């Protein structure tokens, strides 16, 4: 079965309600990373009345930096008070967001959190496509979430003093089997070739990113996933070709619109 993207959403916490009011109580102790991740999923699954068994829905969450600031908050507490907070610590674990999503949306299939500085969203998409292709899942969520930290931003500014700050945010796609859906974007091919790069490359993020005939300007870790999502939403192209060429490798994604 071919994987088809049937829904997608990009979450910008400066414009969108994060978290949605209905989930405020459930997420009252959660950090930004978890709130953005859940908000993105809520955009795809709110009111979901699928007949697919919960064990046949999976989750692949990619991130470059994970809940970095939460990790520092735990360290602050340890250094200042010699103790940790159960909530903070459990939220500092990279797959905490996946756990929240699974619990809130009753996702009982496989769940993977993938950490990568280059293309965490595309790597997650590749794993999701493999699961759908092989018939292991009927559908899955593909996400990338980034919240960064002031320490990281300072380091980035030291290296690139005039570049804009990386915006926090999240992206989520719903991937389903082609025999179950009539409309969406089929994933025709996805090739990712990561290669080791100088560490500066992951902060400067110099890359040629092209989306059909458009050159993408933004180069933050979330930019390719975010711009892909917005482009599909706005233009509904018949075909989509995304290419990225960076110091840390190349990636190419081909999609086509299904009827």
């Amino acid at each position, binding site marked *: 079965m071919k994987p088809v993207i049937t829904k997608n959403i990009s979450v910008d916490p400066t414009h969108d309600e994060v978290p949605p009011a209905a989930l405020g109580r459930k997420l009252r102790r959660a950090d930004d990373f978890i709130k953005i991740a859940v908000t993105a999923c809520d955009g795809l699954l709110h009111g979901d009345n699928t007949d697919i068994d919960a064990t046949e829905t999976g989750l692949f969450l990619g991130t470059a930096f994970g809940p970095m600031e939460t990790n520092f908050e*735990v360290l602050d507490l340890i250094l200042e008070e010699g103790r940790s907070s159960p909530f903070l610590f459990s939220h500092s*674990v990279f797959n905490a967001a996946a756990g929240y999503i699974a*619990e809130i949306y009753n996702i*009982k299939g496989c*769940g993977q959190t993938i950490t990568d500085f280059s293309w965490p969203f595309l790597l997650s998409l590749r794993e999701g496509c493999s699961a759908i292709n092989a018939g292991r899942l009927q559908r899955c969520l593909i996400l990338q979430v980034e919240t960064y930290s002031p320490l990281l931003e300072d380091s980035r500014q030291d290296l690139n003093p005039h570049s804009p700050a990386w915006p926090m945010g999240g992206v989520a796609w719903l991937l389903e089997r082609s025999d179950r859906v009539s409309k969406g974007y089929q994933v025709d091919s996805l090739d990712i070739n990561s290669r080791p790069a100088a560490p500066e490359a*992951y902060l400067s993020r110099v890359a040629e990113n092209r989306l059909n005939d458009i050159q993408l300007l933004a180069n933050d870790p979330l930019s390719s996933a975010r711009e892909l999502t917005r482009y599909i939403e706005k233009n509904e192209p018949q075909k989509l070709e995304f290419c990225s060429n960076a110091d840390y490798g190349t990636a190419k994604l081909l999609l086509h619109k299904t009827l």
Partner: protein
Amino acid sequence: MSISAQKNSPIITGTGCICAAGQNTAAVTTSLHAATVNCAPIPDYLFSSDLTFPAFTVQQEALTREAYNFFLEQGVDPSALVCNRTLQLTLTALTEALQQAGYHLSDLRNRRVGIALGTTVGCTFNNEDYYIAWKKDQKPDIDPVFHYLDSNPALRLQKIMDVEGPCLVITNACASGTDAIGVGSRWLQDDLCDIVITGGADELSRIAYHGFAGLMLTANTPCRPFSADREGLNLGEGAGVLILEKQYESKKKKALGSVRGYGSAGDAHHPTAPHPEGRGMQQALAVALGEAKTTVEDIAYINSHGTGTPSNDRAESAALAGLGFTADNCPVVSTKGVTGHTLGAAGAIEAILTLEALRQGSTMGTIGCKAVDPQLHPAVLIEREERPLNGKVGISQSLAFGGGNAALVLEGYPA
């Protein structure tokens, strides 16, 4: 897509591990048989703490001399080997695995080599001195940040080995190592690569040490998995690495065993506590058994997650009982009594120990467990008990924060 159907079970041609129980697989196995428990206060070379929970730590030099020389002899620049402790542990385990599989780095450079590793601490920024100086606005030198950006375990191995292929780090908390092996196996089945280097690694960090203590999950004494008087887990550190290959690629080699099946599933229950009936664990096991085309009756050995916390052991026990595993058909063992809970490395180290038990055809009991909690699964082997295995297929399983569960069905070829 560049994904096709290649359904043969990946073959394991090399393994390597390091943890408190030893610097290689043979030493760890010896410690298991001798019931050697290296559980002690946190050494100063890791970090200082007012807490007194003992842990299973590796000696100061996590990159052994043998491993260091192995890479130097093969032309790796010494500066490439200057790395964090998690990577040092990984390189030590990798050396053993490559040597067992009979690979020099030059053999791998014209092949598609996938690297799938699991970790928790290995993906975080851990330089406390830098962080403290930065918070005090002392403008510290940026080098530790670059070091962190150069420390993604999979990419760093790719760089050191100078190989090409898919690269991925799984951060599924305590199930990371098991999931990484599962993902790596599927890469071979999907023909994304010819060889996979997989496993998991984690150093012991101050954050994890205090974090688990804050969750009231750590014990003041060496852990006693599945005992009625168990009081929690002991953290540890280590690495486990496996070399996986396609069946036809490995015909000329002495194969150790194969990855027959892998399953992963979510509890959808609680951020940190497992589902009391091990709902997700049952599902992960069912998927792994199905993929392996095996049944409960075929399983000769189970290496459980067995942390020694009341909730984990209860959930795991319920999951196994729910699937029909009984005392008659298969022994259940936890090896954390000699390794400690090595977080992202645990699943990989335990997969290797599962393979060893299956290849040897016998298992030792659960170190630290002198009498099984009567409310738990009756098949748990207790300390000092040794049991011959009635088959060559077994299970290694992991549970994680976030309700993640993962299981591997492994086959061991006779030693």
